């Protein structure tokens, strides 16, 4: 069985009197250790998918099975625990805590996870050995995103979710971040889902899920995913 089964998911938001359909019948599956890119233009529903996978929101109908558990039935507390132990997030705007050093930002996540990895080692791995004591404001955008990735990985989650991780970065820095994500996925074997509107990035994925207008338009598997160094935009 796949690590993730996303079955017939519908998601509707009610804003005032208007009901907006963000996802209408969305299904896909993801295997353990896969690097998946969810591709689509803005407003397609990518972020909704990520929110549902990340336990930040629940679907209107359909089921989401992660590692054999039906998380769409989770209550608030269970969702919190799910985010805590199973999910690592990386965001477009890094969302680091400004008053904590790089190391402390990682430790912040680790302290609430039972199987967390060593914060310092992880920072070494993402190439920030000598920036551990720096505060976010003293780091470049790329460095900040590395800290965010370290923070997500250090929790030792089942799933790493990245929402436009290169969106706020220039292309060279962005490429390095992709490289880092690809490397951790392959080396640690961590299932990684990367959301982007940038089709160039899709070339590095094991599997690409294209989303448009709240529906899965296409799913295909890259037989020979490119290495991150080979792409450019």
């Amino acid at each position, binding site marked *: 069985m796949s690590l993730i089964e996303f079955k017939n998911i519908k998601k509707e938001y009610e804003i005032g009197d208007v009901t907006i359909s963000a996802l209408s019948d969305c299904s896909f599956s993801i295997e353990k250790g896969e690097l998946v890119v969810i591709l689509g233009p803005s407003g397609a529903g990518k972020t909704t998918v990520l929110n549902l996978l990340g336990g930040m929101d629940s679907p209107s109908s359909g089921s989401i099975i992660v590692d054999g558990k039906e998380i769409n039935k989770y209550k608030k507390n269970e969702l919190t625990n799910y985010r805590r132990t199973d999910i690592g997030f990386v965001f477009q705007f890094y969302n680091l805590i400004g008053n904590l050093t790089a190391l*402390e930002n990682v430790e912040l996540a680790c302290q609430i996870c039972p199987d967390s990895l060593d914060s310092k080692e992880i920072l070494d791995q993402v190439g920030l050995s000598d920036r551990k004591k720096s505060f976010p404001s003293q780091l470049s955008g790329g460095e900040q995103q590395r800290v965010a990735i370290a923070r997500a990985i250090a*929790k030792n989650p089942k799933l790493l979710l990245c929402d436009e991780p290169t969106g706020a970065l220039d292309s060279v820095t962005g490429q390095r971040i992709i490289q880092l994500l690809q490397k951790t996925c392959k080396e640690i074997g961590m299932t990684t889902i990367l959301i982007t509107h940038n089709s160039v990035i899709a070339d590095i994925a094991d599997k690409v899920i294209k989303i448009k207008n709240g529906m899965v338009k296409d799913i295909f598997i890259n037989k020979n995913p490119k290495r991150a160094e080979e792409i450019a935009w």
Partner: protein
Amino acid sequence: MLFKNTLIKIKKSIGRYLSIFFIILLGVGFLSGLTATSPDILSVADKYYKDQNLMDFKIVNPMGLFDRDVEKLSSLDNVKAVIPSYSLDVIEQDKSIRIHAIENSVNKVKLIDGRMPENLEECVADDKFYDIGDHIIITEETGSLLKNKNYTVVGTIESVLYLSDDYGSTTVGDGKLTSFIFIPKENFTLNAYTEIYLLAQGTGLVNSQGTGLVNSYSKKYASAVKQLKDDIIAIKDDTSTVMDRNNVVGYSDLKSNSDIVSSVSFVFPLFFILIVMLMTSNSMSRMIAEERNELGALTSLGYKDESIISTYLFYVLSASILGAVAGFFIGCRIFPPLIFSMFKYILPTLTYKYDMITFIIILAATILLMVSVTVISCYRELKQKPAFLLRPAILKKGEAILLEKITFIWKRLSFTWKITIRNLFRYKKRAFMTIVGIAGCTALLLAGFGLRDSMNGVAQKQYKEIFKYDDMIILRGEIQEINDVLLETLDKEKIVSPLLIKQSAVKCIADDNYSDVYMVVPKDRELFDDYFTLNNPKSGDLLALNDSGVIISQKLSDNLKVGKGDLVIVRDSNNKEFQFKIEGIAENYISNYIYISENLYNDVIDEPLFYNTIVSTHNSEDEKKSAESLINSGYVLNIIYTDDVIQKALDDNQSLNGIIILIVVVSSLLAFIVLYNLTTINISERKREIATLKVLGFNDRETNNYIYREVMILTIVSILIGLVLGIFLHSFIVDIVEGASIMFFRKIKWISFAISGLLTLAFSLIMQFITYIKLQKIDMNDALKSVE
């Protein structure tokens, strides 16, 4: 458009808007209320003096004054009127009262009820003691001094000569003047005037109210009468004494008390100005930060900084001006009467005055302050380029704090504690504001509750623990021994162990300081020790009255600034002065006392010692009946039961409750406003941070801990600071309230510390609960996606 935008802004952030409104209301209310108090009281007094034609000078002479004196005085420059008159101190049934002649052009009485006398058998009497229809029976021989000894009260009055309820001293009875009446002048059959009243030009004359009059307490008045006083002194007889208005009971007290209020009124506003500035500046920075995008859009559309700032100015100023207006009128309405009622002066009702000049000054100051705070906060944000504003805000710079350098402590701290401590130092302005606001709240509460501690039980302490007699019997005549008949009478009423004392009202003087004091000379030292427990206030050791010096009460020693071993002068009611050495200072709370041993009295004072009072233990069950038969015996003028005195003191303390309620209300408002403002800003600013924590899988409890640990630490630190400040504030207020003849307990009970601290903590917890609900509502997705 911008204006409409602002109105929407107000609606959206109504809590923050109201917090600015209320803090200004509170601050301006305090300031204007307290500053209005002194002028309000002085102006009602001044009007009263003018309406009643309060004299400027009174000339007295124990040898009598005659028409030639009147003529001499009339010839002086700047004299408007010279009015010879009479007064007489007599014993009326069981108390000493003063009889004045009714005058129409000076010291006019103010009729409260009834009418003025129409014949020689009628009188008008002190409203505080008498009712219409009461019979005044003068129970001593007045010989050729008065036509009548019996009067019917046909009207009750207040007199401008008696402004406070302590009427001063007299040479008759127990030496304490209890009340007064006014009778037609024709009743007096003395062959000389007892006093001459003198009105100076332009100070408060008949039919000349309004323009041209000098205010009673002004410098102008002082200088106007100074010259006249010198002139009078130059022509007067040696035996005459010239007295100015300061001799009027309560006249100078009123001025000094209202001066104290004025000085207090400058302390509080400073505190509020600090809070208001911090709060507004915080709110503005926050609003601008929240609206970065909008500001960016506006600036890129080509709006000038000025017009953008003007929307914030409108926001702040509308709240401030509304707050200032409401605060001014509420403050002027609440504070003066409340403080006036604490003073207990006998004056007409206070009229509320809204001094527009003060109002304009306060309003202008408020506007100036708020405009500068707003403009400075706005410019700091707006100096950035529009494009920059459209991008997300750069994270506030995190920095290592000093404590991190002390590695052996830092290393031991748990991770969450490190964060908390660093956060505390990160938001310095906010931490400071919390401390000022919360500490202020705690200090106010402690001062309020402490004031209650200080006043409660003072009467019991004085009349149960210091004075241990059950009753005080004022004798009709002065005696040297208790004769057998009197002893038998006392026995019959179950009055045991009577101690004869001489008690009289005197003035004590040391250097330039003087104070009204009761002089007490006991006949029997052993019984004296039983009835008067004189303790050293510091050590608690018993003091024994001996023949080498006097024992004076604590407050007297404070008033005169004298201590053990110093000399003190006693001036009796005949203006004779005697000097004593101080042997001890005794714990004492109500009134001032000077205790002199029989032998010492006889050594220093060359007049024979007569006693006028008995204090004793009382075993009778029917106090009223017992008092009646004592008075009927002919020996006794009056009997005062200690229990009644305590009860009266307890009743008097009621007015205190109003003040305490006011303090609690003001301080809780203060705490709520400050905390609300802080926590909403705190949460708004850290929305992203909180959302991040939620996404990371922090559960609600952990998220709250992360935010609230800081708030709790700040609150607790502030409470501790507030408790310390409260001790000072309390002693400051007690000093003011005490006056010259009362001393309160200086100690604040532990329970008051506890209540003040816990109440503040409770305010803080309630506020946290409100914000907790807000915290729950933070949507992870929104916060993470938004560019902030």
